[in-house]
Structure formats: C-alpha cells, structure tokens
C-alpha cells in the first residue's frame, strides 16, 4: 500500500454570491500516483485546487498532507507545505532568464546580492535531476510553450514540493510536447511524487492516470481506478448521461466554392515565412478540416481570412469578392463568421452581458434597428431564442459573460456566429478546453448547418479526433504548406496523419487531388 501524500476531506466552498462551487468533496493522492481530476467546465475543479493551493478559503473540510492536518494560508504557505501548482496561464516573467524565473523568491547569494552563477547552477542541477532540459540563460519570452511549462515544473520542484497540481497542462501543447510531458510526469511519479492532473481529454486521462475523481456540479460523481476506466464510463460520470462522441456523418452534397484561397503567403514580423503559397477552397455544404502541429501556419490562415492579419501575398475570395483592402467588418458582411481560437480576447467582451455580446454584431442590422434606435423588443426575442436553441446555461441574459463557464461562453460565441447570416464559418479550435457536452453540441451544430443550410466550414483543430470525425475533406499543414489531403476521412487514422504532420511522408500533387 502506497503512502498517502494528500487527502482532502469534505471540502465545501460557497462563494459570497451564494454559489456553491464545492460540496463535500473528498479525494486522496498517494505517493507515486497520478490522479486525474476531471469534470465539465464549472464543475468545481479549479475552485477545489485554489483551496488546496491557498488561493481561496473554504467553509468546511480538512486538508491532510502526509497525514498531518494543514491549512493553506496562501500559495507560499502551500508550497512550503509541499503543494506546488502549474497554472494554465504560466506565471513567468518574460524578460527574465529561465534561471532567474526558477529561483525567483528563493534567490541564492550572500545578503542582498543576487548570485547569478549559483542560480544557473541550481537550475542546471534540478534540470538534470528531474530530466527537464532547459537552457538556464535563455530569456523566457524567447522559449516555446513546452519549455515554459518545464520551467514552471522546475520552479515547483526546486522548492521541494511533493504534490504537483497541473491545471490542464496539455491544452497549450503540441502533440509531441504532450508525449514529452507524459514521459516526464511518469518519471516524476517513479520518483514518488504525487500528481493531480486536471484535464478534459479522456484519452489522456486514460493513458496517463492511475485513478480519477470525477466532479459534476461541485460534487464528486465518481471515483474510478485505472483498470475500470473506459471512455463511456468516464463520459457518463462527467455529464451524467451517455454521450456519443462521434457524430453520424452522412455524405456531403457540395455546391460551388464559396471560399477561395489562392497563392496566399504570410511573412511574420521577424521575417519567418509562416504561410507559404497556399491555395485551397471550401465549397458550400462541406466541412474542410485542417490539422497539423501547432505553429505550422493554420492560425495565420484563419486570421488572414477573417481580416485580423494582413496577407503578404496572394488573394482570398469570399462569395465572389476579393477581401484585399477591406476591414474586418466589411469582410464579415461578405459572409464570414469566426469562432476564434482565443475566445476571451476575440470571441467575447468578458465584462458585458450575454445580451450585449449577442447583440454586438447586429447594431447596424436593419432587422434590429428602428430609426435611430435599437429595437429592444426584437433583439430581446432574438437573444432569448439563442439561449434556448444553443442551451446556454445562465441565470439571466443580463449576467456578464465572464461569470459563465468556459463551455457556456463558447456557446454564446457559437450562437452569435451561427446566426449572423454568414454562410462560411471559420472555426479555429472551437472545442479546445471545453467540456465534452458542449463540444459534442458544437460538433452537431457544425454538421447540421453544413448539411441543412449549405454552410461551408473551415475547421482548424489540434484535436485529431475532432477533425477526423467532422471533416469531409481533411488537409494537413506542415511548414506553411498543405502537405496532404484526405478526401475519405473514414479511412484515416492517427498514425497516417502523424506521418504527414511530422513530415515523414509527403503527398505529390496528384495524390493530393483537387483542393478546390
């Protein structure tokens, strides 16, 4: 029997506005165990971890570290007691070096003098010991996301924590970086660390974790051991009903090409050619998926189509109109809707209400304008319809968007974009970091709108299952070019895609076929 490292018992947290975030939650983490904490957005995972890390207080419940009851005053106290956390948004200082970030707060050196050499040595030693390779002299702003995560891990480990909380660590990583992270986490597990792994992705949980606690609506809905884990059981515990992840896809009946991308290139500020002479099209009634390792130009393509980024060369034609020289609003009016990858920046105005967010793109729409004024009645009806049709869970349409869970925020965005009158939807990572229930709803909607209303959808995603299940045609991007096209996605598997994504194989133009 492994030694118990951490136990949380009967945790209850009620926020001052009366919202009960956690109700009587208990779970334990043993030495050398990776324990998953899963649940939909808003199920209370983050709150629970904030309590454990000393960021929030709870009304009831006890925390035991190695059998001793503790109370976490603040994050520093939590670290001293052996609990470290790698936040979803990294807590790093961009203009300091890796070593400086690692030792920040526990700087070595005599008196007030900061001893840089020792700091570098400490980082190198820890990096060696935990097999997390980093360059201590690199500036944090210059290193990749995967490396930043390693720096965060080192920061916690060098302070001697025994329990590590990882808040959705894979959400920001490329598939290779995820592989690497898993190896590192298993290595830490071998060394007796206890790891709490927060995630939405069931396949990752099943691969990595020894046990899982599932939360639903702030309560524990199940505890499950590795040997009993399967996707169906987990899904049922998470959403309380069976969900079928893969939609029943029927053949697309395609129309004319409504989005044409011709010889488009993009060169970024530091002179790197991110998108290199790409041409393809999206026809009415089909979903075109783009997969690829992140940073191979997918994002830039979506931003160029929506006007967020000016293209360096080439032409993009939307419903027969060239977009060069048009502003974002004019481009949208040509029939583009955009579900942005960064939903909190581009997708919504966090502090405004659901009503205002939904209304925001209709302020010059004659449907909702009466003379010089907004037709509140018509708009109100539209908002109510949206909330109903898209199953947005909220107290009232006047509550600010930031109070909603991630999944519901995405529903607001999807509702607005799908009903905007556009016929082309650019969906960039539409279900990243979102609970299974909402993700499945969004998938169904994308499918339904292409089949019934003849929409064209360009789906960009790093979730391979998502692109494989949804796409009628699947493109693979590598180094800013289209490396492959699959016209029959039912015959594609992860491995085949991986070979093209990593550049092991390359399709000739004949093999690739017509890109429209």
């Amino acid at each position: 029997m492994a030694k118990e490292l951490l136990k949380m018992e009967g945790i209850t947290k009620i926020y001052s506005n009366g919202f009960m975030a956690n109700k009587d939650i208990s779970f334990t983490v043993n030495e050398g165990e990776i324990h998953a904490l899963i649940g939909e957005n808003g199920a209370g995972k983050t709150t629970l971890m904030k309590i454990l890390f000393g960021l929030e207080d709870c009304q009831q419940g006890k925390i035991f570290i190695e059998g001793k009851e503790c109370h976490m005053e603040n994050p520093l106290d939590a670290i001293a007691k052996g609990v470290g956390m790698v936040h979803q948004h990294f807590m790093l200082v961009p203009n300091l070096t890796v070593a400086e970030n690692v030792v920040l707060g526990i700087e070595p050196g005599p008196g007030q003098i900061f001893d840089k050499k020792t700091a570098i040595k400490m980082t190198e030693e820890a990096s060696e010991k935990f097999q997390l390779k980093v360059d201590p002299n690199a500036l944090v702003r210059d290193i990749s996301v995967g490396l930043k995560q390693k720096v965060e891990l080192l920061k916690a480990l060098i302070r001697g924590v025994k329990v590590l909380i990882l808040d959705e660590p894979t959400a920001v990583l490329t598939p290779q970086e995820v592989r690497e992270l898993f190896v590192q986490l298993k290595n830490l597990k071998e060394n007796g660390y206890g790891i709490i792994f927060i995630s939405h992705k069931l396949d990752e949980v099943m691969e990595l974790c020894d046990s899982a606690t599932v939360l639903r609506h702030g309560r524990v809905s199940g505890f499950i051991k590795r040997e009993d884990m399967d996707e169906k059981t987990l899904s049922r515990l998470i959403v309380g009903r069976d969900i079928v992840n893969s939609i029943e896809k029927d053949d697309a009946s395609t129309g004319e090409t409504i989005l044409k991308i011709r010889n488009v290139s993009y060169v970024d500020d530091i002179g790197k050619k991110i998108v290199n002479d790409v041409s393809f099209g999206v026809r009415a009634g089909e979903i075109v998926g783009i997969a690829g390792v992140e940073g191979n130009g997918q994002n830039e393509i979506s931003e160029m189509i929506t006007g967020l980024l000016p293209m360096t060369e080439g032409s993009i034609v939307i419903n027969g109109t060239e977009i060069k020289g048009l502003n974002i609003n004019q481009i949208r009016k040509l029939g583009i809707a955009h579900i942005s990858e960064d939903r909190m920046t581009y997708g919504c105005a966090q502090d405004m209400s659901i009503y205002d967010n939904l209304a925001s793109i209709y302020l010059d729409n004659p449907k909702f304008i009466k003379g010089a004024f907004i037709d509140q009645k018509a708009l109100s009806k539209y908002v109510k319809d949206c909330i109903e049709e898209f199953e947005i869970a909220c107290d009232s349409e006047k509550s600010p968007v930031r109070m909603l869970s991630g999944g519901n925020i995405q529903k607001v965005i999807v509702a607005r974009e799908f009903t905007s009158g556009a016929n082309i939807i650019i969906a960039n990572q539409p279900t990243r970091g979102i609970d299974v229930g909402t993700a499945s709803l969004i998938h169904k909607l994308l499918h339904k709108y292409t089949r019934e209303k003849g929409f064209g959808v360009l789906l960009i995603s790093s979730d391979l299952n998502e692109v494989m299940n949804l796409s009628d045609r699947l493109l693979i991007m590598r180094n800013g070019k289209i490396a492959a096209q699959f016209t029959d996605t039912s015959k594609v598997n992860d491995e085949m895609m991986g070979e093209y994504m990593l550049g092991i194989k390359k399709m000739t133009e004949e093999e690739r076929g017509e890109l429209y």
Partner: protein
Amino acid sequence: MSIEYIETFFFSALRIATPIMYVALCATISLQGGLTNMAAESMMLISAVTGVIFSALTQNLLLGILAGALSSVLITLFLCFAAFIMKVDLYLMSIALNTAMSGATIYIMWVMTGNKANTAGYFASLQMPEVNIPIIQHIPFIGNIISGQNGFTYIAIIMIFVVWFLIFRTKLGLRIRAVGQNPQAAESVGINPYKIYTIAFVMASLIASLGGMFLSMGYQNMFIRDMTGGKGFIGMAAATIANASPIGAALLAIVFGLADAITNYSKLYITDSQFLSAMPYIITTSLLFILSYVRVKKNESDMRKRKLAALKASETQE
C-alpha cells in the same frame, strides 16, 4: 568663442543636469517596478525646504540632508499607503500630492520665515561644498568641466551605478523587475507586489530627495517657491525614453541639461523672458519627437530587412 566660454557652457550643463539625473534615476527604479513615478516633484520640493530649514537650524549639513531625505520618505509612505492600501488611483494621488506639496512648502516657508517667495535672509542654508578632483582637475578642458562641481553632482554620478547594481545585481532588483513585468508571477512565488512597489518608491524618493536638495543646498543656498519647475516630469520622460535603463536615463538627463544650458546662454541674444522660460521645454519636446521618430524608423527598417532576408532565404530553398 573662446575655450573658456565652451568650458563654462559644458560645466553649467552638467550642473543643470544634476537634478534631472536624480529624478531620472528615481523614475527608473519605479519604472522597473512597473509604475510611473509622477510624484517626483513633490518628493523634491519637500526635501528641498526641509533640508534648508534643518541645516540652518542645526548648522550641520549632514543632519539637514538626513532630515530632507526623511521628509521625502514620509510623504512617499503616505502616497504608498493611499495607493496600495486604500486603493486610491496612484496617478491621481501623485498629481494631487504634487499640487499639495507646492502649497505646503510655501506654507511651511511662510510659517518659518514670514516670507512666501524664498528663505533667503532668514535661513542661510549650509551648502554642499564644491569638490576638486585630484589629477583630473589638471587635465586641460576636461578637468575644467568635470572637476570643481558640487558634491551632489558626483553623488549623482555614483548613483547611476548604485541604481544599476541595485536593479541588475541584487535580489531586491530581481524582484522589482519581476513585479514590474508580471505581478501575478511574482505573487505566485510568495512575493508581495505591494511591498515591492513600496520599497521601490521609498528608494526612488531617497534619490529624488537628493535632487531636491541639490537645488536648495547646492545650486542655491535657499528654498525658492516651486523651485523644481517641472524637473520631476523631465526626469520621468528621460527614464521612459531610456526604457528604464539607469545609464540611458542619466545620459538623457545630461542631454536635457544641455538644453537648459543653451537656454541660459541664449539670454545674451534673446531678451524675451517668456520665450526663454519656455525654451528648455521646447527643446526637450522636440528632442523627444526626434528620438521617438528615430526609434520607430529604426524598428521599421530592421523589420523590412528581416522580411526581405526571409523571402530571399525561402526562395533559394526552393
């Protein structure tokens, strides 16, 4: 134009640059901590008047300087209390403090001397002596510019390196920079950002106080109402343009000192006093435009070069 004429010109430029250098360093520390220090004016004013009064009363220069520095620290602690604990907007509070100190110093002077313009005649302040530097004073030209300056000027030059060391070589400096760039990150490892802000502001106020006392106990031997005359803001500008680099900020302060010196020397040719009093600011503003324009252009051309190189590289690849 004789050699002596040029020598005196540069000598006075360095002298005029001294208080700006102090304020620029003061603003540099705050800026590294992520906050713009707009209260430097009040820090200088209060220490200028307090230094004069205490040095005259105690007839001890060091006690006067200590009292001046202490007064500056006290109002800064009040500012930090208001901004970081009572959550008043820092910048509004700084501006309010500047206005209040302009009045308060005049009031203090009036209570102590019965005069509202200056303290001359009632309090003869002790002055920081002028220092001749051995060896250097005998070097032709350079010696006549650098040697024989007021003690405060040399302290300012030493301060450049003190501030540089503080920011880049101490634990506190690392924390100030960390808080300045990502307060949440600093907080997550147990650093209290408000504590760091306060320490940074107090150190900044110590440096600003030396600048204030240079005006009343080095350059002059009395306090004159509103004698800082916007130098706090010029120093702030210097620190901002120099991107919070201590050495860069100090060099810019010297450039601004030159602008002032030019104004002084123009008195021989221009008689319009209104225009003269506006002149250093006109020169400063124009310099700001030019410097900023040069920087933007440089960035643009760098970018263009890199883009061209990349295009070429990718073409040769194919």
